[in-house]
């Protein structure tokens, strides 16, 4: 502001400084006060409810006791009641049925078939075998420590 007033003195004369600079300052102060209030509230309301990250899931999966019955009920829901008694041999060729079944099972059990093994799921039996395998999130060292070791073998994992 000092520089502006100095240039005003050299170029245009005193009247310009007296009228122009204080008026501009006065209006700009008012404008600064009004703007940020509206913007903040709008952004807060939009962000909070939608974009909260859900808590991280663990990769451990233990097949539940009633896995067979759950899978059978899912199959009956998706395919309707028109399936034979050997429901394990029902083929999953159709995209809609396969997607419906696998998505329902993944939401139910919290564990989805990875992309690399999707093409191996041709029949419901394959899906059942996949979901029968438990998955642990432990590293190899933790598994070794937790397992049966001979008495003269010790594992220390300290850095």
């Amino acid at each position, binding site marked *: 502001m000092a520089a502006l007033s100095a240039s005003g003195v050299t170029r245009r004369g005193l009247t310009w400084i007296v009228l122009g600079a204080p008026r501009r300052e006065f209006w700009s102060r008012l404008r600064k006060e009004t703007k940020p209030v509206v913007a903040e*509230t709008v952004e807060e*309301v939009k962000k*909070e409810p939608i974009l909260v990250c859900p808590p991280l899931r663990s990769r451990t999966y233990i097949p539940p006791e009633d896995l067979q019955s759950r899978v059978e009920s899912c199959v009956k829901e998706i395919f309707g009641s028109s399936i034979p008694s050997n429901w394990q041999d029902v083929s999953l060729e159709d*995209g809609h049925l396969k*997607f*419906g079944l696998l998505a329902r099972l*993944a939401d139910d059990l919290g564990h989805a078939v*990875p992309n690399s093994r999707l093409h191996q799921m041709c029949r419901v039996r394959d899906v059942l075998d996949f979901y029968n395998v438990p998955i642990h999130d432990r590293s190899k060292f933790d598994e070794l420590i937790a397992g049966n070791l001979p008495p003269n073998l010790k594992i220390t994992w300290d850095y």
Partner: protein
Amino acid sequence: MLQLLRAGARAWARPAGCRGLNALAEEAAPQAAKPESVAGAGPQAPVLRRCELPGPASRRPVQAWVESLRGYEQERVGLAELHPEVFSTAPRLDILHQVAIWQRNFKRISYAKTKTRAEVRGGGRKPWPQKGSGRSRQGSIRSPIWRGGGIAHGPRGPTSYYYMLPMKVRVQGLKVALTVKLAQDDLHVVDSLELPTSDPQYLTELARYRRWGDSVLLVDLAYEDMPQNVVAATSSLKTFNLIPAVGLNVYSMLKHQTLVLTLQTVAFLEKKLLWHDSRYAPLYPFRLPYRDFP
């Protein structure tokens, strides 16, 4: 815009404590009219993609989940079929190595240059006579055994390491890289790269929640159609990179831990990469116009 102002006005009127739930309810009401674009709008039709180009009769197409970036939990929006010749070809690691090393080296020009004994300033005169001085016989003060002399076998001038691998080898390298990414669960297919915000933190949290890895390569079809939010988010992030489909290369795929393709990109890649399996040898270079080039 109107909805934002309405929400702002409502937020002014309400107390701060119950703002979250009320805002959810209010936003669900006007947005329920929009079909299929909001996560909470109920069960939608799954996005299924069939392979257009016929594959070998003996092999079934490989499949991948179609995910969505619009919400954290939208991980199974559909099922996409991928061509087996592109996404489950033989895992030729030697071709991957060849292509990755070629990508690093063919652009390389090393500008290192040293002076030989002829180029170093001076050294035309014999420093002392051949016999009589007791010192070893020397012909010039710039010979390579002298301090300050020339270099005998040093790098000579700008050298180019340019070479080209055959086009089919490079194409096979891309196919093998895509195969390897899918086989190791690092490939994700997305219906489109639309994000709800341009905040880069949303993208990082999404990748962390879905356990994608530290570095993600996002591939869209063309520069013009990239959504603004993704462009803004990835421009500020170092490990999340966005490229058009023509920029896909083996080195980038190996450098980034995860690869995210859109459905249009998958179709584009399949069409371009499979054409080379059954083409004639070129009569003139492919960079000149052909009538049936894909």
